[in-house]
């Protein structure tokens, strides 16, 4: 059965305190892995797509990495405006491309 698990469920950081979020998955025929950011009361907003193990992508204070079984979202020196829920979504091939969203990690960055 295709599954995705994100940890931790919630994370509280002080401004400037770096950390990592984890997304582990068991899907067959991985076509890519997406990271989205979701602010309260809004829909998810695209951050990154990773396609193969060993790939890394960066955007400002965020860096996403991918292995064969999991992905990490590293947050370096976070600011309060980075507070949001971060969702990962592996895409797998089931006749056509399908996304499974994890439950997300709720990140709170305090000044």
């Amino acid at each position, binding site marked *: 059965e295709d599954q*995705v698990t994100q940890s931790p469920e919630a994370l509280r950081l002080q401004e400037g305190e770096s950390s990592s979020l984890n997304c582990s998955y068991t899907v067959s025929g991985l*076509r*890519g892995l*997406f990271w989205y950011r979701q602010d309260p*009361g*809004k*829909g*998810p*907003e*695209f951050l990154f*797509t990773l*396609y193969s193990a060993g790939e890394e992508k960066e955007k400002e204070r965020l860096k996403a990495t991918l292995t064969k079984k999991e992905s990490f979202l590293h947050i370096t020196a976070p600011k309060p405006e980075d507070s949001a829920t971060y*969702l990962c*979504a592996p*895409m797998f091939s089931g006749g*056509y*491309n*399908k*996304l499974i*969203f*994890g*439950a*997300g990690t709720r990140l709170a960055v305090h000044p």
Partner: protein
Amino acid sequence: EAGVAQSPRYKIIEKRQSVAFWCNPISGHATLYWYQQILGQGPKLLIQFQNNGVVDDSQLPKDRFSAERLKGVDSTLKIQPAKLEDSAVYLCASSLFGASTNEKLFFGSGTQLSVL
């Protein structure tokens, strides 16, 4: 570029009543998705259209939920009759090409439904 538009923003109904949500995707986007997001969970796909045809509705509770995409553009999602467990945010998303690609999705802000 205009984003995905959804209405209404909020809806409160009593159980057994009916409700409808509307979505206008980004212009030119072929694929449209309806997701259900229950509090504390990730979005779950209900139905996926490519143009005006259904690609996947395997997780749509068809005894109470229905959806259509008129002329391959706007879409409506209906619940009749609603149950307490239908309380959730209903998100609409669109993407430019078809279901065979691995492109990103663009989401609307959602409709928050409360069933009392």
